[in-house]
């Protein structure tokens, strides 16, 4: 298997269309993400960027087009889909830690139940991951006892525990108090440096500049621009992107 060469396509969306009733929320989306690449998706709210992110592990179905992960097309519901989802880590805006389970159990649930890892091994790996994101001491607590920033770092550890090929971040810092945003972004920047393939929907332009290989700008369900961060921020081509950036910088 030569699957770990850099530069080959890991996630591929071709001709993807999706409607919510009369709203054409994704319009002819074509997006290729290479192994090890960090792609930041930005755009005004309602532009379809979160939906795009969620179609990649089929939390949202699509009406047309194909999505492949590591060459395999997303299967329909069932065991194969569950297996494929295990390869795609997901971090949500609202953390979604399992409210009735301890921090440690949140992280070990997937490895034990899906990967059939033994409990002791899973707990050892989970502790290492929790230490890595800086919340090792919180392991026995329940999610509600942690701050938002801590919860989101646990959510990242939970996704990493499945050893995913790609990580999706759906506005991971949008629900956080300002002073907690950086602790989460630091973990993400480190993850990017370690070579993880990442697709990040965010409003954090600082993160996009620091860690992204590419910035994808979406508006009204379409990909309007797809450029390197420096190029995009200093020299946006479309009027939509110029308009969007000017609104961000005006305060």
């Amino acid at each position: 298997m030569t699957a770990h060469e850099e530069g080959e396509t890991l996630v591929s969306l071709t001709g993807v269309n999706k409607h919510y009733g009369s709203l054409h929320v994704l319009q002819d989306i074509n997006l290729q993400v290479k192994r090890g690449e960090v792609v930041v998706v930005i755009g005004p709210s309602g532009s379809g960027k979160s939906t795009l992110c969620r179609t990649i592990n089929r939390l949202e179905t699509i009406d047309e087009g194909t999505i492949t992960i590591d060459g395999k097309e997303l299967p329909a519901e069932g065991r194969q889909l569950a297996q494929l989802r295990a390869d795609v880590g997901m971090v949500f805006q609202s953390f979604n830690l399992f409210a009735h389970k301890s921090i440690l159990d949140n992280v070990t649930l997937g490895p034990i139940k899906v990967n059939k890892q033994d409990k002791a091994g899973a707990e050892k790996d989970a502790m290492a991951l929790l230490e890595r994101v800086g919340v090792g001491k919180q392991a026995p607590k329940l999610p509600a006892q942690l701050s938002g920033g801590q919860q989101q770092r646990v959510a990242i550890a939970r996704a990493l525990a499945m050893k995913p090929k790609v990580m999706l971040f759906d506005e991971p810092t949008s629900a956080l108090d300002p002073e907690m945003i950086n602790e989460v972004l630091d973990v993400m920047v480190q993850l990017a440096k370690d070579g993880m393939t990442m697709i990040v929907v965010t409003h954090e332009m600082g993160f996009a500049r620091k860690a992204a290989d590419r910035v994808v700008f979406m508006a009204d369900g379409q990909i309007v621009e797809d450029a390197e961060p420096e190029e995009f921020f200093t020299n946006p081509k479309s009027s939509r992107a110029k308009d969007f950036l000017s609104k961000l910088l005006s305060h």
Partner: protein
Amino acid sequence: MSTLLDNLDLFTEGFKNTIILFFFSAIFAVIIGMIVGAMRVSPIPAARAVGTVYVNLVRNTPLTLILFFFALGYPKLGLPQISFMVAAIVGLSLYTATYIAETIRSGINTVPVGQAEAARAIGLDFGQTLSLVVLPQALRAVIPPLFSVLIALLKNTTVAAGFSVMEAGAIRANLSERGEPAMTGLLWVALGFILLVALLSLLQRYFETKWKVAR
């Protein structure tokens, strides 16, 4: 007091059978109810349809008619014969399961949708998502209504008295045959039920405290 002490055999036999009826019916009703509740939220349309038809059909039928069917109709179907006791347990379980299913379904709806999404995102299938993440949280939310259903079941066991099952509801009729005052007998039966329900309420409080979940 003499009504109770002189006929202790009747009272113990009656309440023993009530407890047996309740215990087995409760277990089967909770198991069937969880399965049917899960069917009603399942992504498979056929499972949802079966669950909906079952709940609406059985819940809309009076318990007396259901027990009539198992006591009088079932023996004529040419299937293996069952005792009145077993027939009563089957009838009570199937009837109570519809209420449990609806209680659990409402509990499932209280669990934020993000919990199930996060479970699916780490690769859990539908059954695992439900049993490991959603149901444990749903059950916590529905402990009070769930116990209301179980208390109703405990009292519904008296309906089985009309079908030759010697349980607590039948004590009064038997007392009358022995020439005891009916009212006194009924009071003792009522007291017995109050004690049993009080035990269930204690159990409810235990679960509520133990499963309190912080959000």
